[in-house]
């Protein structure tokens, strides 16, 4: 949790992408306070070992965070491509312009 706060403070991590990490962190921090509820839920769901529920939820959370990353990477990749294409075209036009100006 402290690492995340520090990263955001140093602007190395954007608040937007810190969201899922912060949410996961808060859940982890406060989970010990609700051991009884967790135990009750686990037994209700049929887990023989209550902490397994936490592990499972943690696993889902990580999957979600990863998926968000993949979506973000795809979008950035597309923007990157569009920028590069536009850059190449503009550079070419600038060159043509300079040539025509002499």
């Amino acid at each position, binding site marked *: 949790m402290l690492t995340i706060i520090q990263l955001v403070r140093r602007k190395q991590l954007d608040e937007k992408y810190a969201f899922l990490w912060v949410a996961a962190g808060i859940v982890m921090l406060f989970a010990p306070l609700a051991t009884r509820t967790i135990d009750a839920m686990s037994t209700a769901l049929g887990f023989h070992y209550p902490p397994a529920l936490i592990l499972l939820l943690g696993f889902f959370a990580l999957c979600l965070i990863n998926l968000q990353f993949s979506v973000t990477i795809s979008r950035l990749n597309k923007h990157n491509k569009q920028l590069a294409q536009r*850059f190449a075209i503009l550079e070419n036009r600038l060159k043509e312009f300079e040539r025509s100006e002499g």
Partner: protein
Amino acid sequence: MPHRSPAHKLALSYCSFLYMKRLLIIPAYNEAQNIASVIDEIRSMQPSVDLIVVDDGSSDATFELAERAGAKVLRLPFNLGYGAAVQSGLLYGVEAGYDLCVLIDGDGQHDPRFIADLMAPVEEGTADLALGSRFLGKADYSIPFARKVGIMLFRKLASIITRQQITDPTSGYQAINRRLMRFFVNDNYPYDFPDADTLIRLYFAGFKILEVPVTIRPRLRGESMHSAGKTLYYVYKMLFSIFIALTQRRVLMKGDSHAFRDETVDGYRQPAGDADDHSASPAKTAR
């Protein structure tokens, strides 16, 4: 002769007296050894057609040599992949008001003798895409076995889905009309290699494909970009993107190809906003 709608006939007669602006797009990645001779050869056969080389972030002297050979060059700041390089050329073509583009690889494998054959059906309006097929022409090249199996599989698939014989869906030797150029610029072109999936997408969007026999020569010098190790990824990518295309069938049909025809045929950057907004889906662009 295929059935022609009145609008199509009108377009035909329109095109016959209108001078079509034609552009040759030559994607090149690390082709310093070949690019100059490729440009010279194309020039000697098609002296009246404009030509643009797209240097896909080459680490060698491709850019300098292409410029020295007198070609206009679009230089991508880093390597984007074959499809994205071609798309850059198409974007340039759309913005500069070209009516027809021919894609021809910068490695010398595509014999420029066939440029005219490819342009003819697109100029006449019988096809939106003329696809140069090596399997309709005289064969004088060898293809690795794994690749051959892949080609066989996907040409079968493409032929079934598009209800016409497609013999060479991997071919990068093509002529494209303006309508299809605009479709490709609008996010309908893959980063890596356009293939059967691209053909299926454009078929659903209502474009007409015609195969033209060509011969593909062995590379002049150097290594080809297709390596056998990538076959597994290729099969996955192809199957998955064909599946995606099938799920988007309705959207593609709705955003029909007529949406990609401009109001003004000539004029530099006239269709304001359309080309710049290449993140918009075809359905959104449709009116």
